[in-house]
């Protein structure tokens, strides 16, 4: 399954997410300052930084869920797979299909596990009943949940353990065939065992999807990503291969942060 959308010239773009001079204000409060980021296609990139530095804000601009708040103002450009998503001709539903998001607190819908998986599929494929079983099975297998839930697909998604719920939340994105998965601290509500399981899953998905994962947990960033971005007070301080960023940070602020000198 190749999730990268085909471009006209049949070449997948180098960058999945590319921003230029992205500034964002909540009312009069500026949360992002001149963010220039190029996030490589097909890779796992982690986004770290102290609480309140704008990590979630950045993620939520990439799938345009911030604009629901009437008081948000955005300047600059965000290209996803070489298409400017703030272009007036862009259909929001198509943007959201390409870009899946996993939230901090698992938010399965209060419907059955099966319906959770099929929710997105049904939105975008009118009336096609065929292959539904297959879609459910394949999505659940990809998130390593199939064996655990195959006998209770009719139970509510909200009845699962938090770890399973989070996996379900990832699984339900897959039938929509997104290219980019945004994950906002997907493990912060989980215990260490759950965290390990979800991290393992994120690795499994590597290569098929471009994954941008926000984490508070530096060990997790180090284990689970190929590139790493460090943000501070709404600005990007450093963006490097993960190993380099942790071993030889170029900026003093980065060094201070990874040594635990900020909260």
């Amino acid at each position, binding site marked *: 399954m190749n999730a990268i959308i085909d471009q006209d010239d049949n070449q997948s773009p180098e960058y999945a997410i590319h921003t230029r001079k992205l500034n964002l204000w909540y009312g009069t409060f500026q949360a992002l300052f001149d963010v220039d980021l190029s996030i490589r296609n097909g890779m796992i990139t982690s986004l770290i930084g102290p609480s309140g530095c704008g990590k979630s804000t950045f993620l939520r601009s990439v799938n345009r869920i911030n604009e*629901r708040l009437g008081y948000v103002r955005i300047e600059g450009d965000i290209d996803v797979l070489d298409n400017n998503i703030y272009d007036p001709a862009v259909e929001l539903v198509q943007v959201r299909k390409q870009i*899946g998001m996993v939230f901090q607190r698992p938010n399965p819908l209060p419907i059955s596990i099966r319906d959770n998986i099929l929710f997105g599929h049904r939105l975008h494929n009118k009336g096609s009943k065929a292959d539904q079983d297959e879609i459910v099975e394949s999505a659940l297998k990809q998130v390593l949940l199939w064996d655990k839930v195959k006998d209770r697909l009719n139970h509510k998604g909200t009845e699962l353990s938090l770890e399973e719920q989070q996996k379900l939340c990832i699984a339900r994105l897959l039938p929509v065939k997104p290219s980019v998965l945004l994950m906002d601290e997907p493990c912060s509500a989980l215990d260490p065992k759950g965290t390990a399981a979800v991290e393992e899953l994120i690795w499994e998905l590597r290569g098929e999807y471009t994954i941008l994962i926000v984490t508070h947990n530096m060990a997790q960033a180090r284990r689970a990503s190929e590139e790493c971005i460090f943000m501070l007070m709404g600005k990007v301080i450093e963006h490097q291969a993960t190993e380099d960023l942790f071993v030889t940070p170029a900026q003093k602020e980065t060094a201070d942060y990874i040594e635990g000198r900020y909260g």
Partner: protein
Amino acid sequence: MFAESDLNARNKRVQGLFRMLFLMMTVLLIVPVAIILFTLVSKGGSVISIDFLFTNPTDGMTAGGIFPALLGTVWIVAVALLASVPLGVAAAIYLNEYAGDNWFTRLIQLAIINLAGVPSIVHALFGVGAFVIFFGFGTSILAASLTLAIMTLPIVIVSTRESLRAVPQAFREACWNMGATRWQTIRRIVLPNAISGILTGVILEVSRTAGETAPIMFTGAAFFLPFLPQGVFDQTMAMSLHLFVVATQVPGVPEELPFGVALVLIAMVLIMNSISIAFRMYLRGKKKW
């Protein structure tokens, strides 16, 4: 080391005092309800029978049953609901799911709060002016029901809005992120999870509507009308007005008759309220998140 100090003892006495006080207030609250029910049952219970419920009043309303009034109330409530529920639910959905927080929605909000505060006699006069005269419905079930619908609209809007608001925002975001439109999100997730609250509000509205007298007095309810209504343009008798009439307007009514009418009216309302509560408990038990 762990012995009681003077301060502990004092705090304990004060705590005991307040506990007693709150308990007494709670008991006081039940007393009037209990007295009302007891009086109605003991004085009016004797007139209740199947015949009483299903026959016409006779002898200048001093004898016979209450069937036209009972049926009239059912008519009035049903038509009022048909008008107010779709309108109120739609308005609440718009306010909660579509509208942003701006001066326009705040103005609407203010209007709803004020509508809820308008005395019912003012609604009655508005109903006469608007529905009876301006729209030319005459004194009819339709005019009475529309008057009641407007009066109870805030109940529907507020309770619907509250049930919509109780649906976690995370569900909506989950849907939007999979590319659902607002309407798909509302239809598939928000409404199914808010429906119990909405229905509870509707049932409460029923009991409010059934008991009102002033708004229907000038718009559609008749003192005495020995026929059953045939359609929404007919006048009708109604329980609340009938109670007012037999209690104060007609000479020679046996003492237990008004109590009987009141008992039926209050039973209707209590039954509706109990259904609402039971329904809410049932659905809450089924909910899991």
